């Protein structure tokens, strides 16, 4: 197996899809000459030219708005919004245009659009305005799909699927993962949306984690193993569609659920997961599901404040110990 970084996985996915289908175009701020602010589009403009890989003005609203128009007319745009914290700038274009176009037109128009967006999150002292972690907003918009890969292999396979999907997809990447390496299958492959990855099987408690938190969860799982606690670790990989069956089955087995996400706790994706699990598996639960999320604060800059505000492996360990008590 080859090992590549998460950033390379993104580049490879785009490279392969652009080679396969000339309708695929890539644009956004600094994705061309610069190769993307985090190098995830490196080399694409050289290879595919500036009619298919374009640097744009700082116009997030129109990056997404125009991508909706391009997607409606036979292109398959993959646009980049430099940080997920700026998605609010193009929120109407995502939620009111991209997400609703197919439905409103009675199925006439399709919008095969991918919005790639690197998350800064905590640990980088990027401060409040660069660190919104807003995937919950999009979960609440029917008509959008959401992918949130945690490994190079998932990043590549899911992005290829996203590009081929005929619906708008918000694709959350993580800046702290870009340099992480991982094994990648040989040759052509894709990963279906809505198929969770059971990273570790276990019996005592179900631990659901997304994106960067999967890696913190793995550390926690290893630590708990030493205490003879067997954790089933699940990465849903896509939030819409969500692989409810895999999660519910796991909860039915373990009777306990901890959800670890990097977002602020109130109004989170974790809240939704908790709610539907309770609705669908109440009688199997031995303890209330527990959310390990960020504090309900804008992310502060100073390292001690910041690290206090984002969830870490220790928080996961403690949460699991608590639900097992």
């Amino acid at each position, binding site marked *: 197996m080859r090992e590549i970084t998460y950033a390379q996985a993104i580049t490879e996915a785009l490279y392969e899809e652009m080679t396969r289908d000339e309708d695929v175009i890539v644009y956004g701020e600094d994705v061309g000459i610069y190769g993307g602010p985090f190098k995830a589009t490196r080399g694409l403009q050289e290879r595919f030219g500036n009619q298919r890989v374009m640097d744009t003005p700082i116009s997030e609203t129109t990056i997404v708005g*125009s991508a909706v128009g391009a997607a*409606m007319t036979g292109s398959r745009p993959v646009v980049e919004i430099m940080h997920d914290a700026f998605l609010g700038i193009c929120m109407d274009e995502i939620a009111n245009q991209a997400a609703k176009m197919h*439905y409103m037109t*009675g199925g*006439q128009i399709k919008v095969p659009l991918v919005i790639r967006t690197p998350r800064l999150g905590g640990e980088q002292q990027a401060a409040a305005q660069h660190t919104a972690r807003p995937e919950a907003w999009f979960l609440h918009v029917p008509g959008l799909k959401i992918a949130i890969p945690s490994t190079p292999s998932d990043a590549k396979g899911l992005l290829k699927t996203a590009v081929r999907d005929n*619906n708008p997809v918000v694709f959350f990447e993580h800046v702290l993962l870009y340099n992480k390496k991982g094994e990648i299958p040989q040759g052509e492959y894709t990963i279906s949306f809505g198929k969770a990855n059971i990273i570790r099987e276990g019996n005592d408690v179900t631990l659901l984690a997304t994106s960067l938190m999967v890696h913190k969860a793995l550390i926690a799982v290893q630590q708990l193993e030493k205490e003879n606690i067997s954790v089933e670790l699940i990465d849903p990989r896509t939030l819409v569609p969500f692989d409810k069956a895999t999660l519910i089955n796991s909860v039915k087995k373990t009777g306990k659920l901890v959800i670890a996400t990097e977002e602020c706790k109130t109004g989170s994706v974790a809240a939704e997961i908790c709610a539907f699990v309770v609705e669908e598996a109440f009688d199997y639960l031995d303890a209330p599901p527990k959310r390990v999320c960020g504090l309900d604060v804008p992310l502060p800059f100073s390292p001690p404040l910041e690290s206090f505000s984002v969830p870490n492996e220790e928080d996961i360990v403690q949460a699991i110990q608590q639900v097992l008590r």
Partner: protein
Amino acid sequence: MELAKEKMLELYRTMFKIREFEETVAVLFRQGKIPGWLHCCTGQEAVATGACAALRKGDYITSTHRGHGHLIAKGADVKKMMAELFGKKTGYNKGKGGSMHIADFSIGILGANGVVGAGIPIATGAGISIKRKKEDRVVLCFFGEGAGNRGTFHEGINLASTWNLAVVYLMENNLYAVSTHQSRVQKTTDIAARAGAYDIPGISVDGNDVLAVYNTVKRFAERARRGEGPALIECRTYRWHGHYEGDPLNYRSTEELEEWKKKDPISRFKKVLLMKNILSEERDRQIKDELKNKIAMAIKFAEESPYPEKEGALQDVFCELV
């Protein structure tokens, strides 16, 4: 260059068709037969008609909340439009969209839009597809003067100008955005000044003169088709109805309305056609009866059509096609 007689008559027919459609649906709305909201374009028919007549079938348009005229002029089927307004299954959008969201992708209508100014980036994006695919098309982007103060105007036109896209931006200036007169929300109304910010042509025409609209759009659409980039056209006009049906209209005088009614684009063009002997009073009556009949048939179609089954609400959230 003088237009062919048939084309002239076609413009006249289209304007009247729009007028008849709007006046009829306004009544149906008052009667409670059409649910939701209705934004009529009565008085503005020359803009939609002249502009779309300058396009080809394969060209795209983006429209607005006040979109019936644009759609009819681009060739939409009034039966399917009417059925959509009634919320019927046979409507363009299977009843899912209503007045503000009608689309007919098969003839390049990329949709009315409920969000003011949202069509501008969408039209720009259609221009991106055209350019990459080297297609022989242009996009015509309709929006109101009120939309011109949204950020999307600036960003969308800037992008089209930079990338030299085949988009004609058409600002339909009917002086008001809901109750708000243009002069109260911007200091200059000089369209050339606004276009100058993007180094593209900006020109203003009498929007109640269907031939002026036609000629101007034609000129800039062909220019765009030749790869010479976008343009901004302002068509000065006036809406006779309220912003929406039911508008208390406490913000403008009846005198102002009466002044503009004198500039009715339809009777004005009729005079031209009569003078040029392209139309006779008799032919006029025939045309009108024919079109009234067409609209009546559309109503009948809409009324007799079934509502969608309620479970249909759950379909089309996602496109299942691969």
